[in-house]
């Protein structure tokens, strides 16, 4: 069950643009490894979308995770891999609005 949605908004930092293409590729590989680990642990990635100009960030990723713990662990591993040195971020975690939770 992937009950938790996780939205990840990002914008490259200046430092990202100053990396060589080889260095960017090396870092992307490190981030990709963490994303794939999350997929193996039950997450699903719904896509990465370009939203530049509509807010403070240029891209949004939509993920589903089995739990909030899985979402936080995914993010924590990306941070440990150096992701936030390259990208500014804003994240949101949520649960499905429908069907409405039955009242007690």
């Amino acid at each position, binding site marked *: 069950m992937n009950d*938790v949605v996780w939205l990840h908004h990002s914008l490259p*930092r*200046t*430092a990202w643009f100053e990396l060589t293409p080889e260095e960017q590729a090396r870092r992307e590989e490190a981030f990709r490894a963490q994303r794939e680990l999350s997929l193996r642990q039950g997450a699903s990635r719904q896509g990465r979308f370009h939203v530049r100009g509509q807010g403070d960030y240029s891209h949004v990723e939509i993920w589903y995770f089995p*739990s*909030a*713990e899985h*979402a*936080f*662990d995914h*993010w*924590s*591993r990306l*941070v*440990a891999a150096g992701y*936030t*040195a390259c990208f500014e*971020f*804003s*994240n*949101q*975690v*949520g*649960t499905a609005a429908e069907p409405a*939770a039955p*009242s007690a």
Partner: protein
Amino acid sequence: MSLLSEETEVFEAAPGQRCAVVFLVRRRTPAPGDTGRTAAALGAELDALRAEGWWLSVDRILDGERPDGGEPEEASPGERTEDARAAPCRDVPAGTESTRAAPHRDVPTVYATGFSHDVDYVGMFEAPSPSSALAGTRRLEEAGWSRVFRTAWLLGQREFLPVVGPASRREDEWAFFALWSWNSAWQAATAQQRRAYDEECDVAFASDVRDGAAITGRHRLDGASRWDHIGVWRVPGVAMVDRAMREHARVADFKFTTSRHYIGRRTRLDDALRRK
């Protein structure tokens, strides 16, 4: 979960999965007509969350892993929370006989910030896990919270244990909420530069604790917000915070961070809900 930055002399890593539930709220105007019924429904939901291991006030969070209202557990050797454990854990006046079984000692608490900020109340609860935090915010919203308040919820796991020194007083009714994001300069800094920065900030944090600030430790918020982390201080008053910020500026705390600070006065959530 890895730590966002390393432990310091002042801050020690926390075990477990406990999760901050920070809220920044604006009252809806006009207030709904049935605030009494909403307050009662929310009181019942908060009782249920407390029974599931939620802590519902900054004061309770500062007490840490002590049994609710009970005597301090025996500290393990070298444990650095002994100051917190020595602090009184009572919501009854000093000298009043309290009973261990007394319910509702952890009174749901918010801090009134409307006099100087763009939100009316801020506060922090702590849930036993991120899943509980996420489900609980939804339950609170559905129990009527969203009828009274427009809310930004900020959730994230505890990183550092509370720091409560002998100068802290439980009767202090002001709190200082500090949201931080590290800036691109911090992101670009070397591990050695970050360590040196942490040591400089520790000088200021140690001074804060000597001046009576009780600090909730640190919770990371980066998994579900644009902030990296939050620290909440129970403080003697606004003048103390002003002195503290001058000291933090002196040690260059802010060269590596963007901060947003809220100062508020302790208020029972029930009173905030019923306010006309």
